[in-house]
């Protein structure tokens, strides 16, 4: 009993001290609205490109787009200038921001804005929004993004987290404090060997982003990262759709006269033919059809054989050539229908 009382007393003192020291240090006011704080800076590089070059097709997606569709080959096939905004590590939250803040705000409207996605990513608003992914989101976000904050962060918090976000300075400051601890550990030893912060960041960047991975470990790493997309909760389209950013993307596109096209890219997820995913896709198709948004589903296209992949989610060069051609045919069909 004594130990617990002593522990409680010391912990209370620490928490009170944190409540006094941290809010002014990080400029928090309490109680605060839950969710991360976005800065005022916003990148508009894609908006400027679209206004200056007036591409008629704009592609949005993550690394599967970068390695899946060759924008110049697509332009040749369709006869329309194409511009690819392929951002590795991006997902529906960032695509929503790109559509809202870079494409919808541009004075020139492309014929098609093509969102290349895989499986359930469109209805996973919390996928790839934390840690270094958040820094990426922040680059394309305005100071005030209530929809993003609510759907990608607040809705996904449990009641304990919500309370801590509102009232606990220590919890709210955790990212900053963690960064300081990590920085101390990460840069200390390399500095002793003459490698400063830039040198260390460069070395880690090269190693963590390099492709020299053991094939089994690569499959395992990709599988672990992707597994969040295949939970039973994620595969339930009806329960997820209104909580996701998909309705907002469609709404923004409609309001701004943007023709959205969704393209489902093929991946070797290991659940390609699961009944849950099939049910999800039928519901997605019906949802988009009801809203007159075309969906090109190449998720089970037999032409995209296993030898066209470099790993479980990315095409190799041959795969990119063929997939570009297939997407071009699909887009031309949509244009013809219109």
């Amino acid at each position, binding site marked *: *009993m*004594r*130990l*617990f009382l*002593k*522990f409680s*007393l*010391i*912990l209370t003192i*620490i*928490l009170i001290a*944190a409540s006094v020291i941290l809010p002014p240090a990080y400029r928090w006011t309490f109680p605060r609205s839950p969710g991360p704080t976005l800065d005022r800076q916003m990148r508009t590089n894609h908006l400027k490109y679209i206004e200056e070059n007036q591409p008629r097709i704009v592609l949005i997606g993550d690394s599967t787009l970068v390695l899946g569709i060759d924008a110049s080959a697509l332009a040749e096939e369709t006869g329309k200038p194409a511009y690819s905004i392929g951002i590795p590590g991006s997902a529906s939250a960032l695509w929503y921001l790109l559509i809202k803040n870079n494409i919808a705000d541009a004075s020139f409207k492309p014929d098609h804005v093509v969102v290349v996605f895989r499986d359930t990513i469109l209805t996973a608003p919390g996928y790839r929004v*934390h840690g270094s992914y958040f820094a990426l989101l922040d680059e394309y976000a305005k100071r005030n993004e209530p929809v993003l904050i609510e759907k990608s962060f607040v809705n*996904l*918090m*449990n009641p*304990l*987290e919500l309370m*801590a976000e509102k009232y*606990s300075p*220590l*919890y709210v400051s*955790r990212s900053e*404090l*963690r960064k300081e*601890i990590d920085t101390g*550990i*990460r840069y*200390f*030893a*390399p500095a002793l*060997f003459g*490698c400063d912060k830039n*040198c*260390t960041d460069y*070395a*880690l960047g*090269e*190693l*963590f982003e390099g492709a*020299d*991975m*053991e*094939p*089994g*470990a*690569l499959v*395992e*790493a990709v599988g672990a990262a992707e597994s969040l997309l295949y939970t039973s909760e994620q595969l339930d389209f009806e329960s997820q759709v209104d909580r996701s950013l998909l309705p907002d993307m469609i709404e923004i596109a409609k309001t701004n006269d943007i023709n959205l096209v969704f393209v489902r890219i093929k991946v070797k997820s*290991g*659940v*390609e*033919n*699961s009944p849950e995913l099939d049910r999800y896709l039928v519901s997605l198709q019906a949802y988009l059809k009801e809203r007159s948004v075309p969906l090109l589903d190449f998720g089970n296209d037999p032409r995209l054989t296993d030898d066209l992949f470099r790993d479980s989610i990315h095409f190799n060069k041959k795969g990119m050539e063929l997939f570009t051609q297939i997407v071009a045919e699909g887009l031309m069909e949509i244009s013809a229908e219109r």
Partner: protein
Amino acid sequence: MAFTSYDFLLFFLIIFTLHWSFPKRRWQNLLLLAGSYYFYGWVQAWYAVMLGASTLADFFLARGIALRPNRKRLFVALSLALNLGVLAFFKYYNFFSDDVISLLNSMGFNTNPLLVQIALPAGLSFFTLKKLGYMMDTSRGALKPTHTLVDFALYVSFFPQLIAGPIERPQKLLPQIEAPRIWKADLFHKAWPLIVMGFFKKLVIANSIQVTVDRAFGFAEPSGFLVLSASLGYTLQILADFSAYTDLSRGVSYLLGFETSENFRQPYLSLTPTDFWNRWHITLSTWLRDYVFFPVRRALLRFKLNEKLAISIPPLVTMFISGVWHGAGLNFVVWGLYYGVLIAAYQLIGIRGDWKPNSKLKLFFAWLLMFSLIAFGWGMFRAPSLAWFVNVMFNSPFAPSHNEFILGIITLTMALVYSLPLAAKHLLDRYAPEGWMQAAYHAAAVTLLIIYVNSASSDFIYFQF
């Protein structure tokens, strides 16, 4: 359902409240049994169905031994076939599934890889050993089988231990299941430090070092230096991760009125391989000792084998089985045999498990040698494959590239920094178990937990075994 998830917190609060609200032991046991099956079926309902079916089979086989002792060999054989068959099927099926696909394809059957990939139900390895221990003790007459199906089923499925142990003996857990349980403040006082340490070791230590360790072991051809540093990192990670699970399991068990076994006793302070296995995953080691090592040694003694063989074969067989139990992969088998060879070699030169040299210098070198052997073993254990590990050992250069050197020294720094809290805890437990320093340590651990906590938590490493 991970112990570090919000879902578990809610689940446990409900179970805890109801458990202590029920006045009768029978109702408490029924609740814990229902809760355990719900916990196990959380991801896949059929896991719970499989657990139930195999529990029923073992319950009746054990009752069969009690009713017809003259046919006990048959009942034990049936139980062994059932339990080891199920374990082998789930554990090794995927290991051989590529061959199975090729075979089926060559026979003209068009198979989809998805159809032949079967997930290993979490915890199967652990509760299989629990059931086998129960059957063997019953057949030896060391245990009177319980008449109550609910009690036996709860012994097998007790949720704090279901996924990753400890592999509790029936002699310890069943009497507690059968006895009335009354709430005492002492239960809370035993539980809270374990729960704080469990969360701290998992979320602060293990998860932090995992990032660089995973990356280093993910390279196709890393340098020897990088693998060495990553092996040291993994040495810390696996201890923090696995002992965190045990701490949480024991803490949760205390809150439900059960005292369960400890699994770790400063394993990295061992001086000999036998000493290491007496301190690491203790409940598995003692299980293997009682049901594999001793029977093999007794059998060998009956054959009056040469003394050196009689010393060498039992640890080799035992540790081979330990390796196979840990995973489907040649590196696990060789890792097990590696310890078998080490234990036999130490014993052949006259160094027993309880050996302790007189001089401090000898003590230091004995520890350093054993720690190096342990870290080397973990490197082999964590390697993506045995071929990869052999390639690193014999073909890759030891000297790292500049980038690898940086990652290597960061991993070493992390291993050093994150091992300090564990060392400090050991010293505090030894010299100031109840003082202000101990209280301050736990308060600091909770503070760091709040800083390190994320909404998602990676699974405990031992789940996959």
